[in-house]
């Protein structure tokens, strides 16, 4: 909302500089976003009178105006569509300064061969409004040649402020003036109303009937007779412009002026266009039509409140007037509507029809039901002053069930309990009185709230008012006790952090992708119908750019990140994401949300630098990351078994399980999937559910004493069938290793001329030790023999190298 300081001064004395006032308002809840100093630095702009308009010899869109600047005639080249002979406009003379445009001085210029001795300016160039569509036009009575700052009383400061939704009363000059008065301790001046009712009694001239008083509790009307519709005087136009409203004519301008002044929306009807000069406030008939002032035909439902005459709707109550009863130049008798409508009814209608107006935005938040009479009177007086009409005697005020004033009990000690302050009772009373509340001073204060403060209903609402006016900055800061034993992370939360710790420490970049995806992402991933990944959570109202379902897998998001980076020339990728995936819930239940961690590797793996360690990543790099993650989470047994996930290249996929639970899968992305996501290259991807991993974590595991005796290290190479899962050899060694076996590590996988076709050689480094003594050669030999015997038995394995020692040949 735009508040003119010059206008505001009508209602309250202001002694503080404007920037201090802005600060006061901001710090009490009416946030001042911008302070605009109008007319500051504006020089050399005068009222120019266009005496004649000629065509431009060299341009169709330009014209030449002969302009009286008060002392001489000037030729001005102008392209504005609203240039008319006989009108007055803001004219910038050579040497003028327009600070809203630039800080430079204007010079005369030659435009298409014609010298322009100055230029007309738009409202935006003057800094009085945002209008750039044409040049700024002045009223007929603007004195020619006078400085524009004087003509428009432009020495003003505009506060562009944001009113919180609970304060409709602040959407007016009066409301802000009340705040300023309360904050600065100055007296409030109510606007002048000296209506002299020279006209005939209103009763014979108009009628008002309310059919539904629940939605329209009050309707006040005034009538003006013999009005002459014309332009408003400059001072009013100027104030409307300052507030961001467009002047139309003296009748409509008064309704807008009073709306801005008092916050009470008004509507002016051409009384003679109302059937039987009667206003009927009723709900619309289903399918009833109205053409609103904006020229749109609107079909109504039976819950929309309308203002009708005896035959047809003439306005959408509280939202917008109708074209049929509009005030025009032919209008002489006017009916002023000043009503109170039920907020939710207006909100509903304005939402249903998609119209929001100055009126509806106030009605939907709650206007002052006790303010309708004053606003009608004020408007009637202004209209008769400006239009020469007479005010009909009396008003019509239909208010069948007066709304009782709100009274709230306030415990002064509660104020201090809740704010942590020591505000004395009399200070509390003082503050409330400044806000125009009436107080019965007992132990508990009985506070009667003024009717325009619709937001005050409870004790807490009053406490907030006291805090606001007392000043938030005066509340002393303190720290509360805190959660004691409950404070800190749980074991599960620490483990979750450890996932990102472990993966980022292993050289991966964490990414954050959208929780949304598209159904076609699952087709691209070759996910079969009926798969769990298709238990989708679907959005009712998706955005085109995000996707219509919640993700059931992070893979599409990661592939999109990969594609984006690859397109930007970053080809070596090591990424991970930890986040939720969503599956459709049981009927009547919320969707199921699962925490997942995904890894993507592609391109080269190596050091940052030189030395030639770089090589393409492979499956085992990915698996190593997962194994280290397992170790970080202290999960004992993670099983990797050959899997057949459809998004993975056949023969390169492992399913991961812990105990009874499937955790996820890893492997090389199927080339078709990569194609479908428009990425080229080899991608290694893992997707793991976090919950079973965290559940399997043995966070409290025990320490193993360190061996004091030297260990014995032995290598063996085991030749087995190519098809045999390598992990079973390692597992067998572990299982049969006996009490002294400390570790088993695969260090080589070999196919080649040294071993028979269809076989592979797995080389392991074994380490034996005892915690009690140094093992003898004989003891380790016995251990090794047992391991070898079992390998032979279980897998028909042959032991390379060793057999030769014993003089056997292969």
């Amino acid at each position: 909302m735009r508040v003119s300081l010059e206008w505001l001064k009508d209602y309250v004395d202001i002694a503080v500089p404007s920037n201090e006032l802005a600060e006061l308002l901001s710090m009490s809840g009416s946030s001042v976003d911008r302070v605009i100093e109008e007319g500051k630095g504006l020089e050399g702009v005068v009222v120019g009178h266009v005496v004649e308009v000629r065509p431009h010899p060299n341009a169709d869109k330009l014209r030449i105006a002969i302009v009286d600047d008060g002392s001489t005639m000037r030729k001005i080249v102008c392209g504005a569509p609203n240039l008319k002979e006989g009108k007055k406009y803001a004219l910038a003379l050579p040497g003028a300064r327009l600070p809203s445009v630039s800080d430079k001085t204007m010079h005369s210029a030659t435009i298409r061969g014609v010298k322009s001795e100055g230029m007309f300016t738009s409202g935006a160039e003057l800094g009085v409004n945002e209008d750039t569509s044409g040049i700024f036009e002045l009223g007929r009575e603007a004195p020619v040649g006078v400085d524009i700052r004087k003509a428009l009383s432009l020495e003003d400061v505009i506060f562009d402020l944001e009113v919180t939704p609970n304060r409709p009363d602040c959407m007016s000059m009066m409301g802000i003036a009340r705040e300023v008065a309360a904050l600065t301790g100055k007296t409030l001046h109510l606007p002048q109303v000296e209506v002299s009712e020279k006209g005939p009694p209103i009763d014979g001239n108009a009628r008002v009937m309310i059919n539904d008083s629940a939605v329209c509790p009050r309707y006040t009307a005034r009538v003006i007779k013999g009005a002459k519709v014309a332009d408003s005087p400059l001072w009013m136009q100027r104030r409307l412009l300052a507030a961001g409203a467009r002047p139309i004519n003296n009748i409509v301008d008064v309704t807008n002026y009073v709306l801005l002044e008092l916050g009470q929306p008004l509507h002016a009807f051409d009384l003679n266009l109302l059937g039987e000069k009667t206003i009927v406030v009723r709900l619309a008939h289903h399918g009833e039509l109205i053409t609103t002032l904006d020229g749109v035909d609107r079909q109504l439902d039976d819950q929309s409140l309308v203002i009708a005459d005896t035959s047809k709707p003439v306005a959408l109550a509280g939202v917008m007037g109708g074209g049929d009863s509009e005030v025009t130049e032919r209008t002489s008798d006017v009916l002023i509507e000043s009503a109170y409508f039920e907020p939710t009814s207006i909100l509903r209608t304005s939402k249903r029809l998609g119209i929001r107006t100055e009126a509806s935005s106030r009605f939907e938040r709650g206007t002052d039901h006790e303010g309708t009479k004053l606003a009608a009177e004020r408007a009637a007086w202004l209209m008769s002053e400006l239009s020469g009409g007479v005010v009909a005697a009396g008003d019509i005020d239909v208010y069948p069930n007066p709304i009782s004033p709100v009274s709230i009990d306030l415990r002064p000690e509660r104020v201090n309990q809740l704010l942590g302050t020591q505000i004395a009772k009399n200070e509390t009373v003082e503050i409330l009185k400044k806000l125009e509340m009436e107080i019965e001073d007992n132990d508990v204060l009985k506070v009667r709230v003024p009717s325009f403060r619709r937001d005050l209903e409870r004790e807490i609402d009053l406490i907030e008012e006291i805090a606001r006016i007392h000043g938030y900055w005066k509340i002393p800061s303190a720290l509360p006790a805190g959660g004691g034993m409950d404070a800190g992370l749980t074991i599960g939360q620490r483990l979750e952090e450890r996932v990102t710790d472990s993966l980022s420490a292993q050289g991966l970049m964490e990414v954050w992708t959208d929780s949304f995806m598209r159904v076609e992402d699952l087709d691209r991933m070759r996910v079969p119908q009926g798969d769990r990944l298709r238990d989708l959570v679907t959005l009712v109202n998706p955005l085109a750019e995000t996707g219509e379902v919640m993700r059931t897998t992070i893979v599409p998001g990661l592939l999109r990140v990969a594609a984006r980076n690859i397109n930007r020339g970053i080809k070596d990728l090591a990424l991970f994401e930890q986040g939720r995936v969503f599956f459709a819930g049981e009927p009547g239940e919320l969707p199921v949300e699962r925490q997942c961690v995904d890894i993507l590797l592609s391109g080269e793996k190596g050091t940052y630098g030189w030395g030639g360690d770089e090589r393409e990543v492979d499956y085992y790099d990915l698996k190593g990351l997962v194994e280290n993650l397992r170790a970080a989470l202290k999960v004992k047994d993670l099983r990797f078994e050959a899997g057949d996930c459809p998004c993975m290249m056949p023969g390169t996929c492992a399913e991961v399980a812990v105990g009874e639970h499937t955790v996820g899968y890893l492997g090389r992305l199927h080339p078709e999937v990569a194609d479908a996501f428009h990425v080229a290259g080899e991608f290694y991807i893992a997707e793991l559910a976090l919950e079973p991993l965290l559940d399997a974590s043995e966070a409290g595991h025990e320490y193993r004493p360190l061996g004091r005796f030297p260990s014995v290290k032995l290598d063996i190479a085991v030749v087995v069938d190519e098809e045999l899962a390598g992990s079973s050899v390692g597992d067998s060694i572990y299982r049969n290793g006996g009490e002294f076996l400390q570790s088993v590590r695969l260090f080589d996988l070999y196919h080649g001329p040294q071993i028979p076709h269809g076989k592979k050689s797995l080389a392991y480094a074994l380490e034996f030790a005892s915690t009690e003594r140094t093992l003898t050669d004989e003891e380790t030999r016995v251990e090794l023999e047992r391991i070898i015997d079992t390998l032979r038995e279980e897998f028909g394995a042959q032991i390379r190298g060793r057999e030769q020692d014993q003089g056997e040949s292969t």
Partner: protein
Amino acid sequence: MDVRQELVKLAESKPELAYLVRESLEAVDRSGTLLEIEGARLAILGKKGRVSEIFKHLSEVPAEDRPEIGRVANMLRRYVEAELARKSEELKESDAEAMQKRQALDVTLPGRRAPVGRKHLLTQVIEEVTSIFISLGYWIESGPEAELDYYNFEALNTPAYHPSRSLLDTFYIMKNEPDKNSPDDVLLRTHTSPVQVRVMESRTPPLYVVSPGKAYRREAIDATHTAMFYQVEGFAVDRGIHMGHLKGTLEVVARKLFGSERRVRFRPDFFPFTEPSAEVDVSCHVCEGKGCALCKGIGWLEILGCGMIDPNVFEYVGYDPEEYTGFAFGMGIERIAMLKYGIEDIRLFYENDVRFLRQF
């Protein structure tokens, strides 16, 4: 006359010694490596060496010759010892020199680093914020991102016709059983505040909780808006909690995040679920409050919204607002990160360009 000449002269007079002494001296002269020196030492001075041999055979020589032979043998031993020590010392010195030369590096070349990963900037900021709260005695709770209308709006005192409840502003989720009377609308939570209600429903005070999490708003995506964003919610409910506690807590948090010399101010604002409500500004850390591009000339940066929990919310969860009071706040993590690092486009967080991620 030096020891060597004397030794040679003496040995010549005793033919039985002459050979041994000459051979020993030659062995010493021949040894040019540490290994050879060690060999010579063993051959001459060892248990079975030349000198021991001389002493061993002393009984076989005439008694009058014995002192002289003994003297020569001892002379030989001392000479060889000293000479070998000198040689080995020389050798070691020159060896180390050569070795050093061989092993010298161009220390100015860049190091070889293991690939370094990063937590996402938003993760880093979340961890920073939550750790501040944990140090103040808070714990972490989380809640569903697909949430009931009840928790997201109704129990947070949001009026039925509030604009944020519209299909234009909030993502709603399709019901999976349209014929049955599904209890409530399911939506993507528009803030993390529903966690307040869930935690209060399931526990009794004292509560000191922070809840980081994703939230969603149906907004056209541009430099300052994304449909998905990250919030940290926090609240404290206890006996005797007052607005001074809210101020003190958030002052600590704002200063820990933006620097201990920052000023912090609380401006009255309005939220349906807190009263009194406030917007918190921190003095701009770039211009120190003088006004710059980051703070748009105001000198203050808006960082979060907060307030005292509205008694209506307590009534929804069955707490007695006379017994318990509390405060709550919510801050946008992207905004904090943008202000801290001068990032101008929120979309950078979700684009995941590695060149961006690597910077933090």
